[in-house]
């Protein structure tokens, strides 16, 4: 029996033959995620319980095979790519909601539970799970934990790490540990806090105890259309500086507006250069007062139009353009490369103008979609992969934008992680001592290179080439931000 066949046999002994995939036509489905990278695993295994995950880890380790944990594969930085082969542990069969504690407002779920399914399961109690990545209809809680996912509403409510009370994890020796607990505080190091956002490199999450929030009494959405992008950016800074922290502030530029108009007919006026979407929630009185104030701030920047909505259907219409925009970008170009970075909110005007300059200089259009309230940029470079020069330029532009983010005091990723995509930029943000200190977490978890090896940290020049040659960005409705 070949080494690979022995590995597969051992995995089958843990989960049963039906849940180990190793035929090329089955593996190819797991070759890519939402990012630009690809990698073919030796096997994909679908465990159904903590015990099976533990067994899978032991079996893979016996064969020296790396393990890449995977949720729904919606990540945009290559976190779920088996670029060194090995075993993909797909957690999509672990979809049970094990406990909903209404009194104490938490739920214990398996990692394969889809983000929005959790909210659906608890909404009859007037509760919801707050982190709302735009992929929430597909992405899983386990994946969210790995990437510390955000979403439009994390401006007010925080990202995944602010909502995880405890995690059950399987470490590289196959043992099972609870990190954190079901209460707000637990003694000892906050191991839960370092596993969240560790991109599947430290442990495999097999259960998560997450906080549930009470639905707000009132929600109001304001849409403001500006002729100039700079005015919209200034309005965002104005809202924050006025001491208002809305639930969400989203922004789209002219290219996004054009794409959204073509696909969902959102009804934006002609000549619109930027759309701002502001959502305020909370107590009825607070919502009214704050939306009035947001409107006053927007009026200072010559809006073409302001609309507000309170009932769910009307609000949904205001959001339609924003929610459809990424899929709609496919109408403007065959491919796009979506960049994720965060800057201080006060630097929006400057950075967006520099991005315009980069676009003019390189000749490739860049559509800007922003979680503007927290300074999280998503410039999307439009290009055609059939033209190798354009593809290369698109990647170069991505790098220049990230360098720009760092230059103004920002960071490499707001919500998508480093993964494979940005590992070569990591050393622009952190020096050798910083990276060494982070890298020590792996031996502290006794992980070695068992989980998701070769991610986050710079891999050296050779891997840049691999990355760039593999970079074939796919456009279409399959990606979310």
């Amino acid at each position, binding site marked *: 029996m070949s080494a690979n066949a022995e590995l597969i046999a051992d995995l089958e002994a843990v989960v049963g033959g039906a849940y180990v995939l190793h035929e090329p036509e089955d593996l190819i489905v797991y070759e890519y995620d939402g990012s630009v990278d690809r990698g073919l695993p030796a096997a994909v295994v679908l465990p159904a319980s903590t015990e099976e995950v533990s067994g899978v880890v032991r079996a893979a380790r016996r064969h020296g095979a790396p393990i890449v944990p995977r949720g729904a594969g919606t990540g945009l930085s290559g976190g779920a790519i088996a670029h060194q082969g090995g075993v993909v542990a797909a957690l999509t069969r672990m979809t049970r909601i094990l406990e909903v504690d209404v009194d104490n407002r938490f739920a214990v779920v398996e990692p394969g539970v889809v983000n929005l399914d959790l909210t659906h399961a608890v909404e009859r109690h007037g509760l919801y799970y707050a982190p709302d990545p735009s992929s929430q209809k597909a992405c899983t809680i386990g994946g969210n934990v790995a990437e510390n996912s955000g979403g439009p509403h*994390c401006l007010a409510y925080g990202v995944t790490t602010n909502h995880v009370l405890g995690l059950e994890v399987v470490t590289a020796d196959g043992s099972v540990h*609870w990190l954190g607990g079901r209460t*707000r505080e637990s003694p*000892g*190091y906050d191991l839960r806090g370092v596993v969240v956002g560790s991109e599947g490199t430290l442990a495999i999450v097999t259960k998560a105890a997450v906080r549930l929030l009470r639905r707000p009494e009132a929600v109001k959405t304001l849409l403001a259309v500006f002729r100039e992008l700079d005015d919209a950016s200034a309005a965002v800074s104005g809202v924050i500086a006025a*001491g208002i922290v809305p639930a969400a502030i989203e922004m789209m530029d002219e290219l996004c507006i054009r794409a959204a108009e073509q696909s969902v007919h959102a009804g934006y006026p002609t000549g619109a250069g930027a759309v701002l979407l502001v959502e305020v929630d909370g107590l009825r009185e607070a919502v009214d007062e704050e939306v009035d104030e947001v409107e006053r701030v927007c009026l200072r920047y010559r809006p073409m139009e302001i609309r507000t909505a309170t009932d769910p259907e009307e609000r949904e219409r205001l959001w339609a353009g924003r929610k459809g925009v990424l899929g709609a970008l496919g109408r403007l170009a065959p491919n796009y490369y979506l960049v994720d970075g*965060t800057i201080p909110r006060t630097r929006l005007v400057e950075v967006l103008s520099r991005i315009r300059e980069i676009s003019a200089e390189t000749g490739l259009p860049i559509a800007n979609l922003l979680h503007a309230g927290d*300074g999280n940029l998503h410039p999307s470079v439009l290009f055609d992969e059939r033209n190798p020069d354009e593809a290369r330029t698109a990647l170069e532009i991505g790098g220049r934008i990230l360098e720009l983010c760092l230059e103004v005091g920002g960071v490499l990723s707001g919500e998508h992680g480093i993964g494979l995509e940005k590992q070569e930029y990591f050393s622009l943000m952190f020096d050798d001592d*910083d990276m060494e*200190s982070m890298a020590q977490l792996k031996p502290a978890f006794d992980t070695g290179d068992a989980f998701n090896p070769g991610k986050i940290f710079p891999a050296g020049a050779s891997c840049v080439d691999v990355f760039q040659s593999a970079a074939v960005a796919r456009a279409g409705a399959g990606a979310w931000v």
Partner: protein
Amino acid sequence: MTTIPGTAVRSVSEAVGAERLSGGEGRVIDGIRPAAAVAPESTEEVSRVLGAARRDGLGVAPRGGGTRMGLGGPPERYDLSLDTSRLDRVAAHNPADLTATVEAGITLDALRESLEEHGQFLAMDAPRPDLATVGGTLAAGAIGPLKWQFGSPRDLVVGMKVVQANGRVTKSGGRVVKNVSGYDMARLHVGGLGTLGVIVEVSFKLTPLPRRQATLLAAFDDSGPALSAGLAISNGWAAPLAMVTFDAEANRRGGFTGSARGYFLAVRLGGRPRTLDRQIDDCRRSCDRHGAVCLEVVDAAGTPVLWSKIRDLGWMDDDAPEYTARASVPSSRLPGLIAGLETGGPAPAVVAEPGYGSALVHWFADGERDAVSGAVADARVGAVHAGGSLVLERRPMGSRKIDPWGEVGGSLSIMRRMKERYDPARILNPGRFVGGI
């Protein structure tokens, strides 16, 4: 290993100069007096001090304002007190971005004053903000009532600079409010009691100050209805900044209200005028429904005064408890935990947070030491039984009867490896953290 006092003095004065050194008196932990205290004036100096300590195997206890030196077990070795109070600058405050970067030794009061000018605050409070520093508060996890609304301060930290035990200066995170770039190392240092490194600089996200504030103060016959009213409020629409219940003993010692008898609920509320009024009405109704015998609204001027008293109970020098414990349990188990405290032995003063699930319990022993330590041990059992934990924030000097941290379960093996990785020579607070880390 024992260290001759002269070594510590010589090694540290070579590293940063004798003028940074002082004697170890006033720096006693658990009856142990260090050979020296050092107060570095820069990150670079902290790095040199730790480098020297590591070379000579000195036991180092980092210290901010010194309010929490009673937290943790007795030190294995203690040669040097590392005082961060001279690292007290606001490195950057970007008001329009609601972020600030500050050195670890700045006191909470000094930072508050600096931010207040811009209508902002750091949503992290701790007892004795006149002394307590940002770094010390984070390392001790010593947080006050504002956690009800704003959660653990680890959620407010967006970036951190730490000097590791090997003297290396490392940073993680950034200065922006949303970031997934690399491991979130700051999480290990918040609540880590300085055992993995010394926090020297922290970037925070800030919060706009509420336009107006008020406190609803309600009295009940006993703890049950007070806690139920609190739970009802936390399940309603109002969004308190802080909410606590306290008993007559806490009230008597802290002088929170004039009433001598009863069990109390205090709800701190903020917002624009109409929002504030609506919240007061909602909370008032919840209190009425649960049998409040007396209701009072403390105005904007009185609110900070009242909450300073609540926050500082048990931390004033003239009225220090024998034991202070912080219990964390699922919120629904809080009434049971408190009922247990009321019936089991010497009655403590209890300030609890319904809806958050924590209680600060102070035992003021008046000559009943054994009975008190028995009651503390029982309280630990009660908290663990309720699915939570109980940490001693203060205990009598030299007392080793009760593990200050309690059991942390199976993940202790990972925590031990953390210590081995980040401080293999065990120079930082050796022996004082969970499981003897």
